[in-house]
């Protein structure tokens, strides 16, 4: 993939202004002919990389993103179809194949040109590096809330507009009229002067031979007919009748079933396997040593699971066999202290003169916060179907990065990339977890070893105990206050910086800031978890700012607003959520409201959480969300993402904890790693502001503000400040919501 160089993008001749984004989606030299073999069927002509139109005028949008419930494929289809002026009823989508030609160019563009913030999407749990530059060219990732704001804005809209212009040019040529006399509507090209009107399909073949325009004209929001409207999600009908096929549902001729136990202490290896008892069990086929895990293959999953339980495995010692979460948090504090003494703490933000401000402060406030490791707990446990035969490897699985998986599997099996195929399925939850190819690699190795197609299914226990976890983080704060109690200096030191880089940064107008961090690696594997570093720093920053509001004797909403007065979008969401929550009205006895603000993935979200705390029992009554995504392509889809992000954040805040004991994860299943259920779920109200600022993401921005809004509400109700998550660690009962409290 060396050809995708910075130079390659720039020589497209489309850098600068809006032309920059266009050149990425539609490359000069027209790559459609080379792509047609992957996606075009009979009677179909590929217009450009992301759309095809068949003989019946049916438009297929080719979306380079996975569908894991976020509705991205429908929203992307809306973006392309609107610019194309297609008839929505004639639009469907297919997922782009896992081929280099269908990498997320828009993501790659931003990465290479450095003009887009690309969050942590890559694996990198071993070496601690989220962003691996060498892999950037294999990006086909769904993560970082990028589908709409990168692929959609820089790819789909441009592709739709270009396709429309190519169809119009073809119609103009065949009718012998000037293109300026033509218009389009609902999949038709129209020449009003002559009354001619023909479907796009009539010109599709001709248009497919044209060189795409490098700067197609995009619609302005007032011209949108499909974007900004609620369109029923195209994937939902198959999800109400059991027909949607997830990775775990794939069936391949001659397939057997496997399940796996990985080393309980991360980093440990298989020392010895005794399968003498297991091998006598019904349905047993083979035991497979995967070095850091042991798999059993059998006729069915249940038989594989029973047999695996009968395999006696001993593991090598790593030296981490007695480690606990407490040890790790002690390590974090020790590493921060050491770095402060040696002057090695790494600079993140440095504004003004913090040490002078602290020296002159009227008062200094110090607070420390911490959050634990978290598992993703996708409803669909990790799984993959693999068939390794005749020097080829075919994989069927639900993945957030089909192309990346292809390279990872090829590398693990020492095969040519061209000999590996990945067929993506619906994802039963992703949240970042399905960007790691571990289960697919295991399935491929097992299939290779036994010489049979294999469906590998992890037990839930395996899923919880062998995740790539949301990192545990400790974060220490100091603020210098002036005589009025207002902050004049902000110092924050934390452990382990990943992505997005801006997650610990603040918009609040505090003149002197020093934000710095230390690396404090542990043996626990980690990876991106819905909202990535915002999930921790959102809690830390919005808790500390709330504490500072009380220190200043100010209302927490008004305090934030005062420190943000030059940030109009932030003020707008704060004002809207406060208004909808009747922030200034009394909320009643035993109740409290908390507020939090978070800008992440290009969207700005303010949340108010209302709680009732009676006799220690915390009931989350209502959550209000105000979100400015720039523009909501699918307003109901955006609301669904806010609701989902809030519940995901609430589960983490109330109960979420993966703890380490004896070097291994203590939790194992939903009985000891609980989730918010319907009886604990609050009412959620979402209000949208279309500010028409640069379009932002939706999948993640609802999550980070939930925990601090909740704990700020608990403080307002009880006076107890929660500085360590989850809330269940405190003397609160968080088991269920009381009815009729609102």
């Amino acid at each position, binding site marked *: 993939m060396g050809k995708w160089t910075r130079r390659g993008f720039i020589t497209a001749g489309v850098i600068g202004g809006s032309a920059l984004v266009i050149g990425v989606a539609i490359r000069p030299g027209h790559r459609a002919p080379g792509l047609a073999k992957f996606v075009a069927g009979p009677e179909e002509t590929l217009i450009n990389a992301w759309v095809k139109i068949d003989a019946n005028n049916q438009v297929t949008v080719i979306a380079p993103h996975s569908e894991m419930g976020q509705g991205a494929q429908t929203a992307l289809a809306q973006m392309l179809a609107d610019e194309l002026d297609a008839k929505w009823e004639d639009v469907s989508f297919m997922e782009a194949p896992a081929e280099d030609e269908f990498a997320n160019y828009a993501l790659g563009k931003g990465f290479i040109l450095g003009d887009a913030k690309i969050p942590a999407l890559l694996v990198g749990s071993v070496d601690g590096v989220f962003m691996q530059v060498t892999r950037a060219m294999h990006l086909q990732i769904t993560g970082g809330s990028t589908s709409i704001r990168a692929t959609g804005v820089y790819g789909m809209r441009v592709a739709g507009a270009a396709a429309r212009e190519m169809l119009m040019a073809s119609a103009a040529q065949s009718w012998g009229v000037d293109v300026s006399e033509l218009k389009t509507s609902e999949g038709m090209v129209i020449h009003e002067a002559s009354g001619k009107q023909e479907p796009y399909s009539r010109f599709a073949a001709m248009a497919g031979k044209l060189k795409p325009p490098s700067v197609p004209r995009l619609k302005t929001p007032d011209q949108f007919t499909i974007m900004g409207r609620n369109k029923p999600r195209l994937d939902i009908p198959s999800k109400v009748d059991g027909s949607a096929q997830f990775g775990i549902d794939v069936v391949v001729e001659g397939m057997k079933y496997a399940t796996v136990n990985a080393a309980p202490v991360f980093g440990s290896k298989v020392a010895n396997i005794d399968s003498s008892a297991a091998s006598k069990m*019904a349905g047993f086929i083979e035991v497979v040593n995967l070095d850091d895990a042991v798999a059993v293959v059998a006729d069915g999953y249940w038989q594989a699971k029973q047999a695996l339980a009968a395999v006696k495995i001993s593991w090598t010692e790593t030296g981490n066999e007695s480690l606990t979460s407490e040890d790790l948090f002690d390590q974090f504090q020790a590493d921060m202290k050491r770095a402060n003494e040696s002057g090695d703490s790494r600079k993140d933000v440095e504004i003004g003169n913090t040490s002078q401000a602290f020296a002159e402060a009227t008062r200094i406030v110090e607070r420390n916060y911490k959050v634990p490791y978290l598992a993703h707990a996708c409803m669909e446990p990790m799984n993959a179907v693999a068939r390794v035969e005749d020097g080829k490897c075919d994989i069927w699985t639900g993945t957030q990065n089909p192309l990346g998986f292809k390279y990872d599997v090829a590398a693990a099996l020492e095969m040519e990339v061209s000999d590996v195929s990945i067929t993506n399925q619906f994802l039963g939850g992703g949240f970042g977890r399905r960007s790691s190819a571990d289960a697919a690699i295991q399935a491929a190795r097992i299939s290779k070893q036994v010489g049979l197609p294999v469906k590998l299914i992890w037990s839930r226990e395996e899923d919880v105990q062998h995740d790539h976890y949301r990192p545990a983080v400790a974060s220490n704060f100091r603020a210098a206050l002036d005589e009025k109690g207002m902050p004049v200096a902000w110092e924050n030191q934390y452990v382990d910086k990943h992505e997005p880089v801006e997650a610990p940064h603040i918009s609040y107008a505090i003149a002197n800031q020093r934000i710095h961090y230390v690396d404090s690696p542990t043996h626990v594997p980690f990876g991106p978890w819905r909202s990535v570093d915002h999930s921790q720093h959102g809690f830390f920053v919005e808790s500390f700012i709330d504490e500072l509001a009380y220190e200043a004797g100010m209302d927490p909403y008004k305090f934030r607003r005062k420190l943000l007065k030059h940030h109009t979008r932030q003020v707008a969401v704060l004002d809207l959520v406060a208004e909808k929550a009747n922030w200034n009205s009394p909320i009643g006895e035993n109740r409290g409201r908390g507020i939090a603000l978070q800008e992440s993935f290009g969207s700005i979200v303010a949340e108010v959480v209302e709680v009732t705390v009676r006799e220690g029992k915390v009931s989350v009554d209502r959550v209000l969300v105000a979100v400015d995504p720039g523009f909501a392509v699918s307003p109901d889809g955006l609301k669904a993402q806010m609701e989902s992000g809030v519940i995901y954040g609430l589960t983490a805040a109330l109960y979420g904890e993966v703890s380490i004991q004896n070097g291994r994860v203590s939790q194992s299943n939903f009985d000891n790693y609980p989730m918010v259920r319907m009886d604990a779920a609050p009412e959620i109200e979402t209000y949208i502001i279309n500010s028409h600022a640069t379009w932002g993401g939706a999948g993640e921005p609802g999550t980070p503000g939930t925990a601090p809004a909740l704990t700020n509400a608990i403080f307002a109700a009880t006076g107890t400040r929660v500085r360590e998550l989850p809330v269940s660690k405190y003397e609160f009962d968080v088991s269920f919501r009381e009815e009729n409290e609102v």
Partner: protein
Amino acid sequence: MIKLNVNGKDHDLDVAPDTPLLWVIRENLGLTGTKFGCGISQCGACTVHLNGKPVRSCITPVASADGAMITTIEGIARGDELHPVQQAWIDEQVPQCGYCQSGQIMSAVALLRDNPRPSDEDIDSAMAGNICRCGMYSRIKKGIQRVASGEVQHG
């Protein structure tokens, strides 16, 4: 031999009696709409009806279902006509990833059959056994209320 009637069709199955019904439905009968989520009756993704009652098929030994009538997500529509709960799920745009929804729908169908006008508390208690990691609880509740209020008819 174990006899099951699944979605109106009779099956004679030669399977170990302790095999959970879930795996028989998925692997032996090829009905993959019923999902595996936890294996310990904690998440509800595997919910099917056994003689009309919702059960977690992941902990139900197939032997205990011998001779029983089983209904799965594939068996609740009448031909091409969706069950009202399925239709309500589309109307309310309930599913996100969709993995838990077969179980959610089977629990909701059972609730509404026994209690056509459930209160909020009834819904909470009937549905609390089904986890939705995408957090679509408010839409699930609205879907149930939509059916209860008669807003949705068959098809």
